[in-house]
């Protein structure tokens, strides 16, 4: 693995070396290392599609799986299907992420289709980072799709971050929750230049006591565009909260489309959306501490997306 690939791995998975525990590293469409553990098995798919199946046994406690993807080619497109089967009672940390370095003029594109089958009472923390760099004019495109099926009492916490370099992204996340299941999503997005980012969350709260809490924070700078769609369907006694908080700068465009559907009288659903520029007062406060306006802006954005 060369320096560039190592840098990408560090960006998306905080990996400095071969990770502890189970892992699967995919490089330009090919496996670059795979390791299963007694509790976590990683296998190639049998349906002919590109990607892997990950089986997490119910005995898994506090273990991690790293499945980073690295692309350093230009004019390269791939769609990868990864399916996670997490057995009842497991407790696992999954770290995915995609790093693209495209120094050509053609497009590099990665579409990761992830499906999570999370068994009764299992706990999953899923961390996903997207990063791209390049010195050519090639576009870096990522279109992740995530489907989450939470059985009774299961819990998933998802952190998804896209901070740099992705020119175009359409991110679709859908989830269905059974009774007592819980879904927490924290999304952070920064776009600049002419980038476009769209996220589309759709959550069905199907069981009594199911709960979802989705918070998206984003900064849209320069000429970039962002679109947010968030839909929560409360089909039983449940609680759902979604929040979209965007800072808009320069000539950027941000659209937020919240939707709540209550199909049960005991469904409690809340949506909050706010789009606005950085408050003048915040800039002023930091300037009275000796920061320039530009430095103040940087600190506010850094904090907001931290």
């Amino acid at each position: 693995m060369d320096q560039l690939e190592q840098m990408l791995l560090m960006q998306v998975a905080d990996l400095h070396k071969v990770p502890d525990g189970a892992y699967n590293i995919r490089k330009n469409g090919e496996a670059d290392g795979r390791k299963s553990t007694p509790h976590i098995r990683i296998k190639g798919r049998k349906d002919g599609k590109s990607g892997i199946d990950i089986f997490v046994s119910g005995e898994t406690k506090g273990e991690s799986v790293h499945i980073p993807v690295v692309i350093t080619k230009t004019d390269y497109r791939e769609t990868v299907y990864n399916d996670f089967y997490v057995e009842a009672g497991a407790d696992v940390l999954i770290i995915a992420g995609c790093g693209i370095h495209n120094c050509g003029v053609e497009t590099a594109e990665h579409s990761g289709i992830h499906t999570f089958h999370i068994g009764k009472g299992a706990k999953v923390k899923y961390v996903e980072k997207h990063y791209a760099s390049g010195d050519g004019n090639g576009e870096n495109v990522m279109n992740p799709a995530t489907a989450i099926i939470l059985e009774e009492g299961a819990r998933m916490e998802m952190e998804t971050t896209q901070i740099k370099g992705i020119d175009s992204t359409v991110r679709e996340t859908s989830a269905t929750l059974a009774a007592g299941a819980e879904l927490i999503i924290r999304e952070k997005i920064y776009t600049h230049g002419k980038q476009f980012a769209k996220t589309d969350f759709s959550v069905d709260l199907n069981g009594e006591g199911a709960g979802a809490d989705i918070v998206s924070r984003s900064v849209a700078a320069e000429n970039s565009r962002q679109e947010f769609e968030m839909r929560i369907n409360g089909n039983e006694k449940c609680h759902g909260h979604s929040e979209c908080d965007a800072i808009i700068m320069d000539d950027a465009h941000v659209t937020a489309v919240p939707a709540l559907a209550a199909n049960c009288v005991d469904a409690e659903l809340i949506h909050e959306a706010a789009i606005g520029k950085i408050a003048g007062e915040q800039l002023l406060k930091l300037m009275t501490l000796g920061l320039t306006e530009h430095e103040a802006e940087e600190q506010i954005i850094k904090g907001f997306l931290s």
Partner: protein
Amino acid sequence: MLELSHVSFAASDGDAHKEILNDVSLKVNERFVAITGPNGSGKSTLAKLIAGIIQPTEGKILLDGEDITNLSVTERARRGISYAFQQPVRFKGITVKDLVSLAAGRKITVSEACTYLSEVGLCARDYIDREVNASLSGGELKRIEIATVLARGTALSVFDEPEAGIDLWSFQNLISVFEKMHERTNGSILIISHQERILNIADKIVVIANGRVEREGTREEILPNLLAGRICPAFGA
């Protein structure tokens, strides 16, 4: 030393100009100077003019002899002026430690940050990693605001009504914070306040009314009259 020389400020309201400060001249050299006066007399405007948040329509502001009238907020801050907001600003994602670090102008250790926070009566361990957002109460935000000024340790610290929006219990603590500050400061503290107990610490009191300096003098000269309501009936402890 801070000097205001014939400073006026008019706010435009449509076509009309409203004179808020009118020919104010003032020197701040003492350790603790309190500015007081009825609501709407122009006190907060004065504080904002000193910090550079607004510019005077006439007159000059000098800091240690240098004309700073046309300097920006940032430049004034770097020359040694600190300003505590009457309504502290909230930040999503910026922690108390981040803010105190930014104020100090360098990365500070947890124990340094704790020192500043305990100065203002906050148990540092509970606060250091909290975000300076709406989850903090008005009194907590106020103290953090004061801690940022302490962390800067500049020659001139301006406080705009630190007691505003603070409950009585917090207020007792706030007074002791300012008493301590008075003992320890190496520079000047300029505080806008209505509170007798804060005026009681002041070496000099300036009374502003209707946009003008109505009286100034030592605490002994000014306070008895103020309390007797001879200058303005709006006062009282």
